């Protein structure tokens, strides 16, 4: 049971971070379907930082630098979306798809180049971070607490406050709803949209880091992040672009994901003898069904996906 909670929380943390990233981007008016690619690149940034940090570095420093690295790399990578979508009016879905192809390919190319430069015989695309990773974990009895769980919670609360209680949030959402209106009251739509995309890059990158450190101490970048970016998008829509709902949706999805892996610990579930594939399909089937019910009144930011054209009437 403890395990179920632990993994639910860690999977939910990944989903919360990435879905909130998507939420900020979409509230600014830019659809970010490239979260999967951003996650991979953020994970890469964090992984490399962990790899190169001296083993003696204190935990707090490790956490700070690693998080910073993944956040920064995620942001830089998301700039690709920002430039194309905001400055060049590119089709956002297309560019997002390109990021999803680009992220994993670039990560492998980079890691391989690094590995081979260090040792010509090491042709792997794996980065190991056994020591540094320990900084993120605290064992509380049988429960393995990860600082990321706390981060996710804090960021969730912060997102709520930022979106609904601050000037920045009000302006950001105005840009995603009615950029012409925002522009007419002197809000720089381009800047706000960049802010949204960059936040999605930061949170997406951090989410990627959380994912690859969730269970293992090395990551083979050929394997991307296994569709978590897409799942996060579903969480975001299921959560109706609202932080609190996203938090709840992420918990639900995290629960199913965790269940598919730890169900063997529950005799009742084992006795059901469901094919394990079914457990894997669960999150997707559930989200599809849920979408059927929530989409009718779905309130996506009105201007998302539409390039902002100052001259448009």
């Amino acid at each position, binding site marked *: 049971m403890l395990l179920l909670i632990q993994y639910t929380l860690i999977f939910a943390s990944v989903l919360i971070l990435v879905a909130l990233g998507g939420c900020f981007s979409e509230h600014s008016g830019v659809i970010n379907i490239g979260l999967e690619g951003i996650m991979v690149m953020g994970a890469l940034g964090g992984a490399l930082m962990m790899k190169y940090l001296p083993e003696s570095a204190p935990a707090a420093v490790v956490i700070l630098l690693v998080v910073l690295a993944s956040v920064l790399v995620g942001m830089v990578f998301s700039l690709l979306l920002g430039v194309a979508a905001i400055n060049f009016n590119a089709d956002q879905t297309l560019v997002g798809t390109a990021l999803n192809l680009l992220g994993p390919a670039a990560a492998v190319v980079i890691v391989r180049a690094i590995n081979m430069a260090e040792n010509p015989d090491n042709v792997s695309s794996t980065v190991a971070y056994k020591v540094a990773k320990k900084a993120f974990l605290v064992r509380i009895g049988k429960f393995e607490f990860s600082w990321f769980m706390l981060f996710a919670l804090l960021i969730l609360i912060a997102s709520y406050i930022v979106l609904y209680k601050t000037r920045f949030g009000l302006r950001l959402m105005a840009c995603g709803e009615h950029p012409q209106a925002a522009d007419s009251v002197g809000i720089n739509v381009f800047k706000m949209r960049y802010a949204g995309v960059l936040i999605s890059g930061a949170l997406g990158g951090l989410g990627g880091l959380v994912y690859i450190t969730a269970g293992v101490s090395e990551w083979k970048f050929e394997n991307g992040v296994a569709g978590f970016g897409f799942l996060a998008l579903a969480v975001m829509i299921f959560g109706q672009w609202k932080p609190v709902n996203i938090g709840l949706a992420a918990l639900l999805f995290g629960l199913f994901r965790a269940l598919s892996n730890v169900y063997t610990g529950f005799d009742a579930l084992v006795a059901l003898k469901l094919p394990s594939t079914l457990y894997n399909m669960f999150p997707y089937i559930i989200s*599809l069904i849920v979408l059927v019910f929530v989409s009718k009144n779905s309130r996506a930011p009105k201007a998302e996906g539409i390039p902002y054209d100052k001259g448009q009437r």
Partner: protein
Amino acid sequence: MNNDSKKKAGILRNNAFQTIIASLLCIVIGLLIGYVVLLIINPKGAAGAITAILKNYFYYPSQKAMMKYMGTTLVKASALLMCSLSVLFAYKVGLFNIGAAGQYVVGAGASLYFALKLGMPWYVCMIAAVVIAALLGGISGALKAYFNVNEVISCIMLNWISLYVVNMLLTQVKSESTPYTVDLSSGNKSALLPNCGLDQIFSGNKFVSIGLIISVVMAIVVWVLLEKTKFGFELRATGMNKNAAKYCGMKEKRNTIVTMMIAGGLAGLGAAVFYLSGIETWMVQQTTVPGMGFNGIAAAFLGGLNPIGAIFSSYFIQHITSGGSYVDKTMYCAQISDLISAFIIYLCGFVFFFKLWLNRYLDKRDEKKAAKGGEK
């Protein structure tokens, strides 16, 4: 002379021409970026690697081997073409079919299941693939039409569900000791697409079959359907303005569903021409959705969202993807060609802007000319 320059401006203003220029530009810049990446990794082999990617089957000194692998590239390109047609068709009707990947998966599942479990001949398998993939596409369409579920999201979900279901289904027809499905050549020869002598052209490459012809014909059919028929007129109108379509009596819900069904059917057909050629078997433990459908997005956009353009762009993308396997792996990893095609797709996002910019430039030039002419 004046006439001449007018003609030139005419061709420059031609939309199709602009698209071709833009696509070529994407390709060139994409390759350049790839080259720079290669240079950074290892300057020694960069030139060799980029030429290997561009050469693909021209790598082989013997004409025979060249033709053979040209055939293979064409077979793969034909499947890619079908997926890009699927994406393109939906896009023209205002839907983003990111589900081509999943529709391709169920197409593969259906054709192999019908071939190996039910022992059906190729045309039945092909029809099964089309129908089942069309149904899957139809689900996304129906969810959109009746429940307002964003098709991108439902497609993504269905991609994964399809993968798991097909893995489960095809476990029944996998060979005993491996996770791969039985070869069609040993499991059911009648399910192999007829070669119609095409294999002879390509040095006896037995995978080259009528699938090639089917896919090119389908590209033309899609073009005719969209541009020349009443049906296409209606579908496109629905895609551009659902409300107007409804207002003038088109069945906009039905059209959304039909569009996704056709798109699904095209992707399913892509899987059928690929898997029924016998070139690959299905690995029932796949944990990622095959990239064919996603690459279809790339090919569709690179081809300027034109079915005929897609023929060329699909071939090109397959050409450099296959070319990637000729890169010296001791220096560079295979993902380098993925990286290049990803860059090319990314750059496709700028095509619209490029055209806008070109037209503005032409406008300005014309204005200046007119001003000069006026002075005289």
